[in-house]
């Protein structure tokens, strides 16, 4: 995408009928580190790659609990994501106060999408630079939605956003037909495999990823590091090569350099905004 004379204002159409500022906002999502989501009939799992900028700093929070039955994973401008999470939490709390009932996730995503649309039609605003994977439960079952800066939203069986998400998406495309009837643990395992794809060669360990689950009878919560590491160890021993079409050379070199248990994050840091 190159600069052109129609891309300064979000309220300026291009002759081809495009709003470039909105498209640039979607680019910002692609620059953020990967986030993935997948669902079965009863559970939804969210995962993300969580790399700190340096050894000295902490990880950025990219998964937020919105209510007991809704959670969100973000990619892109995390500050925008935080603000939208606060909006979502407010909406859920207000609905619960008035109706003593959880806000159906399908309605929340529409409200979120309408909020994003406003920013594409005001000259004094800019679009939100964050993509949200919204996972939630309602009367009709488990749902996974993707909300993008354009104000569109889609429902998915499984999806990945952010940098190197294509690798994760490829893995999910192979697996998605079986997901609906997966058990909760298999779903988490698939999420971890998808995250590994997005890491492209780097060793998967719980210090560089975050996983969260919501399901029937299981309120939304982020799995703690130990549990995640145990799950990683379990499937790496059992069936390492079944899923990924891994790049062997780069992987071998890096795995040799990085032993498990090391809290250092090595080399390849994607442009984490």
């Amino acid at each position, binding site marked *: 995408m190159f600069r052109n004379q129609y891309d300064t204002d979000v309220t300026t159409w291009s002759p081809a009928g495009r709003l470039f500022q909105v498209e640039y906002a979607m680019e910002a999502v692609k620059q953020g580190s990967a986030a993935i989501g997948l669902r079965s009939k009863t559970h939804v799992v969210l995962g993300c790659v969580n790399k700190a900028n340096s050894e000295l700093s902490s990880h950025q929070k990219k998964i937020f609990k919105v209510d007991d039955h809704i959670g969100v994973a973000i990619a892109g401008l995390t500050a925008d994501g935080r603000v939208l999470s606060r909006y979502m939490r407010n909406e859920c709390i207000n609905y619960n106060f*008035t109706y*003593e009932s959880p806000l159906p996730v*399908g*309605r929340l995503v529409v409200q979120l999408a309408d909020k994003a649309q406003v920013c594409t039609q005001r000259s004094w605003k800019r679009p939100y630079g964050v993509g949200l994977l919204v996972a939630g439960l309602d*009367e*009709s079952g488990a749902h996974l939605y993707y909300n993008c800066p354009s104000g569109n939203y889609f429902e998915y069986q499984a999806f990945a956003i952010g940098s190197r998400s294509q690798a994760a998406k490829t893995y999910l495309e192979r697996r998605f037909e079986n997901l609906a009837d997966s058990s909760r643990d298999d779903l988490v395992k698939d999420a971890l495999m998808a995250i590994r794809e997005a890491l492209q060669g780097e060793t998967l360990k719980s210090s560089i990823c975050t996983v969260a689950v919501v399901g029937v009878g299981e309120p939304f919560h982020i799995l703690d590091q130990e549990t995640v590491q145990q799950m990683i160890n379990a499937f790496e021993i059992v069936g390492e090569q079944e899923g990924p079409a891994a790049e062997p050379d780069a992987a071998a070199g890096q795995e040799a350099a990085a032993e498990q248990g090391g809290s250092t994050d090595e080399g390849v840091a994607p442009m984490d905004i």
Partner: protein
Amino acid sequence: MALKQPENSLLGSESDPHRTLYPYVTGTSVVALKYKDGILMAADMGGSYGSTLRYKSVERMKPIGKHSLLGASGEISDFQEILRYLDELILYDNMWDDGNSLGPKEVHNYLTRVMYNRRNKFNPLWNSLVLGGVKNGNKYLGTVSMIGVNFEDNHVATGFGNHLARPILRQEWHENLSFEDGVKLLEKCMHVFLYRDRSAVNKLQIAKITEEGVTIHQPYSLKTYWEFSAFKNPAQGAIGSW
């Protein structure tokens, strides 16, 4: 026009035309109970104007959305206002067109918020409401008063119904009443209202709500018997000047 009172003087002057101070046309008790398939509710069709039994065809029970039934006692015009609020609520709920719908629990809580907030502004909706319904097999029966008191129970009543009907229901209600038994029990309560509540009229409706939907039956009257010996000489056991 009269002197304009500042809008935020709460009790201010009683010439403030904008607050409800007294009810004018009122309905009397509503009574409801859970039975095997859902909820049964009964109310007479009277609208009293003070001590005059003025209106005799007032429908005090109305269906709300797909899953709920609302019965009201108290000021009839306030009940009509509440029906307008709920109509709008259900309309917006339907406009989402997304497979979700507000159930009786949600409607009940919404009403509680409305009643309580009005009470806090010293401008109540002068009603006691009974909200019953069934959704996804779950039966729900609750009540809200004009000051915002709300609770759920297996059987509820408003106004005099609390004193005349609830004791009967506490004795004779049980889980899984059949439709016939439920109606018999409600009719027993309505009989007592007729004999003992001076605002009761002998024209009542029974309404039922089940998973299938709402049915409000046609109005009918109860047979009464006035030849009890105790009625013949009511002051016998208590001769006095009052």
